[in-house]
């Protein structure tokens, strides 16, 4: 059976896409003819891939990321590349060089970030499935703000080959969909061992979600309902946790002391990695070329000032500073020690409970421009970054609304127990729908 063509010409009024493939090819398989949107930091052969950055304008990858190859092998139609915060740096999708995405639930608000385009494409009904990436919450945050489901898999379970790196020890490609079943299906397609990614694990995913969570111990750390978590959001999430209890789960309150410095550890780590990863963008191998009449450093500096947005340059600068010899011990080394403490906290908690539950985001979706101060934007990631520091799976599932805006319930699980977090999310989703 040869390739067939899917006609895809959506009314993209929320600017979810940076690039649309109006005549998308597809073949046979479990996803035959299903339109799938792909975040624009994932390489797609023959389709422009920019990371929402001017420095990659016009870049057309000569190869597919492994996740894209896996989608195509199951017949999916890759219908476009979705908007994002430039290089994944942000929690609102306002940092795209090509303009922000609007939240389909309220176009006056951000969709969350950095996979805001993927979340908006699903929430607006333009595609049933989308790929996002999650470095510190970038799948779960927009899933929560747009009222869809998003899973950050266990680190290493989904190949990062072909993902344009930002914070490579933290980031994961993951599925986004309107329902837990959709996320489960997409996960079963993209989760494969990949010899081209040396961090890839050999742990394929083949799972049928179950609603039976009787006896599951659900830990709720006090810190996930601490200062900064909007009380009405907290109340909606507690109601969701109570529903899990009515479904037979046992709810246990607990403590996670490393939360105090997890966010700082996360930002020092990702900025340091970004300063190294983004050094390759010099205009020589891809992107608009530098001025060859000028000397090397002068030409590159100018090219990178023009090509990178403010937030990208800020993170490269701070990352360079954190890795410099005089400050390495104060920032980077301490951040790695903090990261180990976060892992230890999770190990201790997971010896007592099966999953950990709490809000995905401390508030509902922000209004545009509300987080203009970078530090205030960083602080909004406090509940999602611990899972990235520890490499554990975490899912966000819609669990109610505050003033008509969606709230996400976050379920985190033990390393490699992605199936269990999917089950708990499924039990919530099905229970809430009854």
């Amino acid at each position: 059976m040869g390739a067939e063509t899917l006609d895809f010409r959506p009314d993209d009024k929320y600017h979810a896409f940076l690039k649309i493939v109006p005549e998308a090819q597809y073949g046979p398989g479990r996803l035959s003819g299903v339109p799938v949107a792909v975040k624009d930091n994932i390489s797609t052969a023959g389709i422009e891939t920019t990371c929402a950055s001017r420095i990659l304008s016009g870049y057309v990858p000569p190869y597919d990321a492994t996740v894209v190859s896996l989608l195509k092998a199951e017949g999916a139609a890759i219908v476009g590349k979705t908007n994002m915060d430039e290089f994944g740096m942000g929690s609102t999708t306002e940092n795209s060089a090509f303009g922000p995405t609007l939240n389909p639930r309220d176009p006056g608000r951000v969709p969350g970030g950095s996979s805001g385009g993927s979340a908006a494409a699903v929430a607006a009904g333009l595609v049933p499935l989308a790929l996002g990436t999650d470095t510190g919450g970038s799948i779960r945050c927009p899933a929560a703000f747009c009222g869809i489901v998003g899973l950050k898999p266990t680190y290493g379970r989904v190949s990062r080959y072909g993902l344009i790196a930002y914070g490579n020890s933290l980031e994961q490609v993951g599925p986004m969909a309107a329902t837990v079943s959709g996320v489960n299906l997409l996960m079963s397609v993209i989760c494969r061992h990949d010899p081209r990614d040396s961090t890839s694990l050999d742990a394929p995913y083949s799972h049928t979600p179950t609603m039976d969570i009787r006896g599951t111990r659900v830990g709720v750390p006090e810190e996930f309902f601490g200062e900064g978590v909007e009380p009405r959001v907290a109340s909606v999430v507690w109601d969701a946790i109570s529903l899990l209890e009515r479904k037979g789960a046992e709810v246990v309150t607990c403590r996670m002391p490393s939360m105090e410095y997890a966010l700082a550890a996360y930002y020092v780590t990702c900025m340091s990695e970004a300063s190294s990863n983004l050094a390759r963008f010099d205009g020589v191998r891809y992107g608009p070329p530098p001025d060859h009449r000028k000397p090397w450093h002068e030409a590159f500096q100018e090219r990178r000032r023009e090509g990178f947005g403010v937030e990208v340059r800020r993170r490269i600068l701070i990352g360079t500073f954190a890795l410099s010899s005089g400050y390495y011990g104060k920032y980077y080394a301490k951040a790695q020690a903090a990261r180990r403490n976060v892992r230890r906290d999770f190990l201790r908690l997971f010896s007592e409970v099966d999953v950990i539950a709490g809000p995905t985001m401390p508030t509902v979706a922000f209004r545009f421009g509300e987080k203009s101060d970078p530090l205030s934007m960083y602080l909004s990631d406090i509940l999602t970054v611990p899972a990235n520091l520890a490499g554990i799976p975490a899912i966000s599932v819609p669990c109610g609304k505050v003033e008509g805006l969606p709230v996400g319930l976050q379920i985190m699980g033990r390393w490699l127990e992605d199936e269990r977090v999917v089950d708990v999310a499924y039990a919530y989703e099905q229970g809430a729908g009854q």
Partner: protein
Amino acid sequence: MVTERDVEYIGMLADIAIDRGELAEFTASFNRILEYFDILDKVTVEEDGGDSAIVNVFREDDVVPSLSPEEALSNAGETEDGFFRAPRVM
């Protein structure tokens, strides 16, 4: 506390040019963020320090199919005689 001069110097190290008009805001946000990072001073470093779960992943040093020279050069802004063209070093 970093100064505008420090930020300019770090920008030079990172090959990130900063316009004069941006310098004050970059320096202010830099300092606010570093002040927040001071919370890491509370972290205690335990003796076992390392991560015993980390292992090296090796592969055989075999020649495998790769991009053709044409594909590798396909996104370059400027090429010359089958090479990438870069600004002069000296």
